[in-house]
């Protein structure tokens, strides 16, 4: 077992050494954040990441008990021509993209910028969107956003239809066939397993501890804290160093803020993209139209009542008239 408090203290002291109060966000601040009513946010300073992979290993180790344990053979799913088994249970050690057994991986890129070649390493995982479409559009209530900003998929409820992956701008959640609730319903005709992604180590956060990837990082790449503080810190560093920010506005705002010495458009051009390998494209707010339509939805009942009052008045008048005949 790792001595969490010890490591926390080490980070704590490092923070003091750095001489920056806002960078110093020990575990107790993490626990305090939800009480202050603010969402938790992370800052990833990409200038620091050396791609050592400690965070990836820590994530896998700490979250192993949450990983799927499917039993074979998997029930046949119809129509077989369309519904494919997605099985990662025998490729658990894949760590160069997101899988149900790998919720975090390191993306690397070489970018020429400002007359220099930069080697940038990027920890990639769910960004924990503030108005997460994966959670909003899940038809089954399996994906949800907590008040502390963590977006989670409930593995006991998820049916594995993968709609969350489709509607996520970065296609983050990954599917494992052969586990979950669908097996107990109509496994042949609906569902296909459970979707998995970073859950921001919600259980550790609930205990006032740091997520494993943050705790394990020897370079202190990540910082976590209340969103307003993290955003302020990001802007301060970006201004000081002429760095670039990603995640503050993307998809209507996420609780993961990347800071990079090179523009994200350049990173987006060179990073490997594909299944389980998100890019850095400009992402508009996925739920912006729904936000506008909600006004119409809000007004409709009152308009209906008003129209009803007018109609009832006329109807009563004519009914009264008929009685008098």
């Amino acid at each position, binding site marked *: 077992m790792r001595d969490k408090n010890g490591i926390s203290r080490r980070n704590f002291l490092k923070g003091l050494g750095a001489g920056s109060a806002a960078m110093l966000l020990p575990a107790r601040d993490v626990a305090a954040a939800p009480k202050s009513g603010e969402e938790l946010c992370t800052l990833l300073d990409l200038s620091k990441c050396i791609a050592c992979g400690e965070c990836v290993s820590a994530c896998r180790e700490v979250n192993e008990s949450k990983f799927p344990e499917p039993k074979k053979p998997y029930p046949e799913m119809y129509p077989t021509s369309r519904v494919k088994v997605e099985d990662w249970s025998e490729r658990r050690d894949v760590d160069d993209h997101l899988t149900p057994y790998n919720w975090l991986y390191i993306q690397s890129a070489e970018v020429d910028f400002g007359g220099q070649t930069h080697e940038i390493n990027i920890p990639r995982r769910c960004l924990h969107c503030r108005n997460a479409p994966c959670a909003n559009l899940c038809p089954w209530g399996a994906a949800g*956003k907590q008040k502390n900003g963590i977006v989670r998929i409930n593995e006991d409820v998820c049916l594995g239809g993968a709609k969350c992956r489709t509607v996520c701008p970065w296609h983050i959640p990954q599917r494992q066939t052969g586990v979950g609730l669908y097996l107990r319903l109509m496994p042949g005709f609906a569902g296909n397993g459970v979707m998995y992604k970073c859950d921001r180590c919600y259980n550790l956060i609930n205990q006032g501890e740091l997520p494993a990837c943050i705790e394990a990082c020897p370079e202190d790449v990540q910082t976590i804290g209340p969103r307003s503080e993290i955003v302020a810190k990001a802007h301060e560093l970006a201004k000081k160093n002429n760095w670039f920010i990603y995640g503050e506005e993307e998809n209507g705002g996420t609780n993961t803020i990347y800071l990079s010495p090179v523009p994200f458009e350049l990173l987006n051009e060179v990073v490997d993209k594909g299944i389980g390998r998100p890019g850095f494209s400009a992402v508009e707010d996925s739920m912006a139209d729904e936000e506008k339509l909600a006004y119409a939805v809000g007004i409709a009942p009152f308009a209906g*009542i008003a129209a009803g009052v007018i109609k009832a008045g006329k109807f009563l008048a004519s009914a009264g008239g008929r009685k008098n005949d």
Partner: protein
Amino acid sequence: MTNPLFTRIFKLNIFIMALTGVAQMPIFKRYYIADIPGLGWLNDFYLTNKIHYIFGTVLLFMTLYLLTVFALGGKQYFKLTSSGMLRAVLYLIVIATGALRVVKNLHSVTFDPFTVMVIDWTHLGFAMLLGVAAMFAFFKGRKPYLEGLPGFRR
């Protein structure tokens, strides 16, 4: 109380709500329905969700209109039949949970995940019950919603 045009629009609206509602589950692609020429849009979750919102707006307007007319003027002239009452209650539950889903999708609103799950299951469950009721009515013959005065039936 209502005219045939109102009824027709209401029915068309319910059809679109049912179609775009079912389209929120990832099944139209699985069962090749979205492969039928002209039906590809059924596989666009964002598009069908927006259509669901738009027609939901119309449905809310029509429902509140009917309720108001019924509450203010109809009560003394009409009585809901028991099957009409049942279907009206089903509709109201589906509409109310749908409205809650719109609220929870707002940027400034976060319900806790368990509440969201209860809302989603209720919305889906009662919409399915409505489907069953509609099927029942279709095969067993339509029952009127209202016991009303002649000339004021739907």
